[in-house]
């Protein structure tokens, strides 16, 4: 059977499952809509969190990025997993005990101020919208590459599916579709990885095969071979850093703290039954995420070795079938500058080959000659990863509007029914806006998605952590800290990514830290400003201190 028929069958089955779950999980109350009624078990929440968290970028792009970055790819591997330790130890259990619906709920109540609430709403919308646009684009790209439909048609199909289960089932529908999506995406990621690991090293466990000897009779270690190949072609050794270690340190920390501060991840912990389940499900979520995150660097190393061995310095007329196919999509480009008919892939101006990083996952099964159904599975996995993350973000957006803005600030008298209708309507509009950005992606999306972590790190994380661990922190301190943190982050991003405020290049970076890592500095500024301002303003009221005492202790729910 052809790749395309397989893809229609596998994607069709998964979509039918998602729609079935949506119909089964229709909701009738706002509590069900926002937090799935607070009745989700630890395992279900762990799986849902893992799918919520692993986006199109984790599934499609990350292994490719690592493949080209080598050691430097560790910033994503550590940054996007280490944040769960912060979540489990510093945030999730207490936010669950607090027991409301959204992150601005916590900020607004803990800092006894609607201004604090509004700042939090602004930050949540800014972070979530930048993120969701990238997901819808991912859906469109997967559709167009595997089903040969137009990208825009792909985006619209994706919108309709998400619309269906997010509007009908709210958080409840999203949670149980995410559980199904986790299963699809992890299976789709692991099957090709295991096949390739066996082919290249004879070891069925990619995490170990990655350090093993090659299967080609040479008994050379894969990583040594890769280091040598890279050096021969003028690249840096694969296992050594190209960025400065200071920058790597800052980016890793910014990504970790940003992960812990992302509202769509935090709200997942409002859905579990009790505090101990919040801790446990953070552990389960990270364990399930780690399966993909420890496999991705192995896939990266396999794919790079494969690519260099099959392509580099080979005559163009002899390239395998997949090369031509992906050339048609523009993801591989070959330009024979010196007209010798050979593919010169080197790290200087004589380079003749352009390879898009997404190829490393999307074309990997073809490069390794795997059966057609495996290739179709990768398409279904990419869609599952993108749709699950998009749905989680859309819920944050709709809850920010219907709950934080309408119910808590503009029109507190709204009835339960009215609020639920408002939530559904805002989910509908959020899907439309996300779809619009998916079809007409603003050029800055790619640049901004990575920076969403910096924005979350510099705004939410300090405010929430101090809200729990530092009783004296008052509203003036928290608001000033969030405003300074997020403004500083926006300023640095605009200056170095978009050439505002005089622009600048890497030699002008403060402390040698790139915009991706600047969240670390902006977060530190948030903490410092908060504490200074707090010392000059009125103390936290007694009733707030009692709230803090209460969220620190599990029971009494």
């Amino acid at each position, binding site marked *: 059977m052809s790749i395309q028929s397989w893809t229609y069958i596998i994607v069709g089955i998964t979509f039918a499952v998602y729609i079935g779950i949506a119909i089964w999980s229709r909701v009738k109350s706002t509590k069900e809509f926002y937090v799935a009624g607070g009745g989700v078990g630890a395992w279900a929440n762990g799986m849902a969190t893992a799918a919520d968290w692993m986006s199109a970028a984790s599934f499609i792009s990350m292994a490719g990025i690592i493949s080209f970055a080598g*050691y430097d790819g560790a910033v994503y591997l550590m940054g996007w*997993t*280490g944040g769960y330790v912060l979540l489990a130890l510093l945030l999730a*259990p207490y936010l669950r005990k607090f027991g409301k619906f959204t992150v601005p709920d916590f900020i607004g109540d803990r800092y006894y101020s609607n201004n604090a609430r509004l700042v939090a709403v602004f930050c949540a919308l800014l972070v979530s919208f930048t993120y969701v646009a990238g997901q819808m684009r991912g859906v469109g790209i997967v559709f167009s590459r595997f089903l040969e439909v137009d990208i825009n048609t792909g985006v619209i199909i994706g919108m309709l599916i998400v619309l269906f289960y997010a509007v009908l089932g709210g958080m409840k529908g999203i949670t149980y579709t995410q559980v199904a999506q986790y299963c699809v995406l992890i299976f789709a990621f692991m099957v090709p990885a295991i096949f390739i690991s066996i082919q290249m090293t004879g070891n069925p466990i990619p995490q170990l095969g990655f350090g093993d000897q090659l299967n080609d009779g040479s008994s050379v270690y894969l990583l040594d071979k890769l280091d040598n190949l890279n050096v021969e072609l003028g690249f840096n050794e694969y296992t050594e850093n190209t960025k400065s270690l200071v920058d790597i340190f800052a980016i890793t920390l910014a990504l970790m703290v940003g992960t812990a501060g992302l509202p769509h991840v935090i709200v997942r912990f409002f859905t579990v039954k009790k505090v101990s389940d919040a*801790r446990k499900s953070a552990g389960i979520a990270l364990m399930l995420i*780690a399966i993909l995150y*420890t496999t991705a*660097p192995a896939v990266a190393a396999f794919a790079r070795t494969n690519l260099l061995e099959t392509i580099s310095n080979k005559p163009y007329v002899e390239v395998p079938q997949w090369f031509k196919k992906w050339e048609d999509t523009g993801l591989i480009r070959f330009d024979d500058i010196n007209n010798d008919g050979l593919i010169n892939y080197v790290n200087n101006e004589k380079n003749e080959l352009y390879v898009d990083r997404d190829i490393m996952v999307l074309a990997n099964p073809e490069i390794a000659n795997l059966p057609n159904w495996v290739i179709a599975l990768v398409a279904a996995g990419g869609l599952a990863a993108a749709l699950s993350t998009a749905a989680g973000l859309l819920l944050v957006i709709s809850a920010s509007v219907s709950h934080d803005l309408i119910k808590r600030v503009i029109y507190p008298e709204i009835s339960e029914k009215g609020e639920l209708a408002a939530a559904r309507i805002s989910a509908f509009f959020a899907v439309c806006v996300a779809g619009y950005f998916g079809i007409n992606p603003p050029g800055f999306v790619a640049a901004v998605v990575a920076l969403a972590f910096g924005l979350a790190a510099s705004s939410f994380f300090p405010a929430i952590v101090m809200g729990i661990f530092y009783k004296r922190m008052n509203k003036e301190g928290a608001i000033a800290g969030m405003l300074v943190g997020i403004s500083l982050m926006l300023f640095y991003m605009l200056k170095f990514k978009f050439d505002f405020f005089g622009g600048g290049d890497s030699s002008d970076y403060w402390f040698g830290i790139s915009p991706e890592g600047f969240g670390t500095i902006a977060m530190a500024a948030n903490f410092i400003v908060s504490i200074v301002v707090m010392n000059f303003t009125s103390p936290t009221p007694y009733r707030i201190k009692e709230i803090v005492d209460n969220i620190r202790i599990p029971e009494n729910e």
Partner: protein
Amino acid sequence: MKSKNKENIYWKTNIKYVSILLFFWFVFSFLFGIVFKDFLNQFSIAGFKLGFWFAQQGSIYVFVILIFIYVKLMNDLDKKHGFNR
């Protein structure tokens, strides 16, 4: 008053656990994976340079283990103070 005291002890123990576990979180990722990477790369295990392994594999395993240790410690602590209803 007695219950306030109990809650204080609970919270102080929690802070102690969190501090110790975050110390290991920092050591295994930031120190072993980044700051001392070049030093550790002199050694190799199972075909990996050690610093590289911590950065791309080891630190992630340690993160998972740290969370489950915290889950266990806190479940015991909840039980001890009767907060585990």
